[in-house]
């Protein structure tokens, strides 16, 4: 995909997050410059989670997602979600814990899920950048704190 088109699509997706929603969800946008979106999730009685989406070639490719501590360092402990979306077992390509969920690059490049192509989802509702981030956030909310 042409990088200017990818950037325009990225900006369309991330510039429309309404302030009222950010407040309701307690999301703090830390960085919003193509191809990076970095958001801090906070909630009562939960360890905050910093989520970095790298969205180059959006949306020909799904975002690569990195989970970090509030300060931007490695997570001391990966949250454990009941649906196993947050994986402490390293991804074979990156060697890092990863988000194993439709809509993330780590899912679609994992050997177990290579048959489940991103193209099956990329134009579907709820698989824009905000939708994917929402899914990660909900997985985090269901995880052990």
């Amino acid at each position, binding site marked *: 995909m042409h990088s200017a088109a990818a950037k325009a699509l990225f900006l369309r997706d991330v510039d429309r997050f309404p302030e*009222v929603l950010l407040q309701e969800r307690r999301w703090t946008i830390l960085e919003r410059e193509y191809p990076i979106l970095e958001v801090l999730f906070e909630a009562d009685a939960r360890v905050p989670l910093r989520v970095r989406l790298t969205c180059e070639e959006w949306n020909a490719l799904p975002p690569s997602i990195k989970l970090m501590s509030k300060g931007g360092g490695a997570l001391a402990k990966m949250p454990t979600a009941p649906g*196993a979306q947050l994986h402490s*077992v390293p991804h074979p390509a990156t060697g890092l814990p990863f988000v*194993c969920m*439709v809509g993330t690059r780590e899912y679609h490049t994992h050997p*177990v899920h290579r048959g489940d192509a991103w193209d099956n989802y990329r134009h579907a509702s709820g698989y824009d950048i*905000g939708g994917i*981030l*929402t*899914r990660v956030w909900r997985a985090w909310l269901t995880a052990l704190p």
Partner: protein
Amino acid sequence: MAHNEKDDVPKNHVAVVIATTAGTWPLSGSELVPDHQKLEVALEKAAKALEITNTSGWIATAGGRKLDPTKSYLENQLSNRCTIDFGPVESGGGARA
């Protein structure tokens, strides 16, 4: 009916905002709706206005509490002014290395 945030909410009504990562409905301010109306009416209007073509599997919450779109604002214990967070649920995962 659009509602001015500075005005009081009339009796038996709710001033509602539907918030999604694709924007809000209404675009600004809030919408005045009867408190006995089902939530799904506003959710459908929001999806249409925001050009969200498929919301099957999405959930609505307020203050972190999951709402039932097939029930009214009253039945969902929503009154006066409310912001409804509307979005997809986490999708499945489960790869094993």
